[in-house]
């Protein structure tokens, strides 16, 4: 399979080193989950991949140049309807008005928002706003779809529903996804590749193919053990 995303020796300092040195490659169609203890630089790494922040060291090679990002917040424009929000990002892609409308409708439908196209974001639930943000990110048909704890603000029930939805959308579209989460259960549930980062400064602690060969419950246990080790190491380091 074609390599779609290559992270080469990426490091980042903000006064202190946040990311030490991280390298990995992602093949087209993979669903990568980035895991790690709180504050280890997961979000920073994702922002570097998305080009929102320059790395201090190393480089990111993207197969194409189009990215879609789903942030922790929906980041919809409250003064535009859900449909107009999606159509807006299709202008730079170069689609005409009719195509924009059709594409927006198609992806809003895929995200389960058929019938809600003409609502303003303030009039729908948080889960639906996040669905709209996902539809917007998919609509530009990105080479890689980046998701930064997109369900962090949702309640447990909505969260589970959205995880299943994202997994379904991933299967339907075959997009490459890099998904940041602090929930091990979530990562094991939806990811095909799990990358566990170490405590700050981040390195790759573990890279696991989640192909079903290891039982899920055991995988969750193992990853929990690793994350606790990392947290302890970080706290020990701070005391020393």
């Amino acid at each position, binding site marked *: 399979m074609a390599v779609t995303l290559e992270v080469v020796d990426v490091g980042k300092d903000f006064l202190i080193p946040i990311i030490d040195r991280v390298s990995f490659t992602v093949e087209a169609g993979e669903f990568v989950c980035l895991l790690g203890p709180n504050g280890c630089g997961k979000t920073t790494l994702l922002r570097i991949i*998305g080009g*929102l922040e320059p790395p201090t060291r190393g480089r990111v090679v993207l197969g194409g140049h189009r*990215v*879609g*990002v789903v*942030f922790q*917040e929906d*980041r919809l*424009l*409250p*003064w*535009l309807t859900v449909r107009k929000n999606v159509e*807006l*990002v299709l*202008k*730079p892609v170069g689609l005409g008005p009719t195509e924009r409308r059709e594409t927006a409708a198609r992806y809003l439908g895929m995200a389960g928002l058929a019938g809600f196209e003409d609502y*303003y974001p*303030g009039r729908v639930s948080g889960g639906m706003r996040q669905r709209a943000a996902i539809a*917007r990110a998919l609509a*530009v048909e990105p080479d890689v779809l980046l998701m930064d704890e997109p369900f962090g603000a949702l309640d447990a029930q909505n969260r589970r529903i959205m995880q299943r939805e994202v997994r379904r959308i991933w299967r339907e579209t075959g997009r490459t996804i890099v998904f940041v989460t602090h929930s091990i259960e979530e990562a094991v549930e939806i990811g095909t590749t799990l990358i566990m980062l170490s405590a700050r400064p981040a390195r790759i602690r573990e890279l696991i193919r989640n192909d079903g060969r290891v039982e899920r419950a055991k995988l969750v246990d193992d990853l929990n053990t690793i994350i606790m080790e990392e947290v302890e190491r970080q706290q020990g380091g701070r005391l020393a």
Partner: protein
Amino acid sequence: MLPSPRSVLIGLVEVVRSGEVWTHTAASLFRIVFGFGAAVVVSVLMGLGAFLSRAVRTVVQDALAVLNSTSVFVWIVISLIWFGLSNWAPIFTTFMITLPVVASNLVEGVAGVDRRLLEMGDVYRLSGGEKFTAIVIPSTVPYLIAGMKVGFGLALKVSVVAEIFGVTTGIGYIMNYSREILATQMVFAWALVMILVMMATDKLVFDAAARRLTRWR
């Protein structure tokens, strides 16, 4: 000494019937439209500058703080020295007094544009113009309207004061004239006209515009 409400009402009916009310209200509004209109235009330019450069924003904010703490009377005296007894005194005074109100609102709105939304615009490669029309304008327009609403009320009050000097039309002139001929009931009648004009523009212009532009709320 207070005139009876009856005599005030009779006076009001009189000036409406004679058409005098339109002459003076129109004269005052004409000056306001110039002074206040110019203030809005300059405010928008300042807002634009503040959006494009942080240094400009700081300079504009400091300048507005100075203007904000300058008394109406200072501008009236200065404009009398510069422009003499003419239409320009009330126009200039209105401009100088309403500018800091409208502009500081707008600059605050510009500073408050959600950076996260602009970053979203970057992710999807919106052009500068697209970001400006889709993100910056909609988030600052409510601030502009709020500033204009306060500014217009202020414009009416201030230009009326400036009309005491050197002009022979306008609500301020006629109020002062009524005082001189001891027609106190007419001072009250004209004060009523002023209040009505202010309430009407508030409801019919600014509130209506605000409602129209923030339908999404």
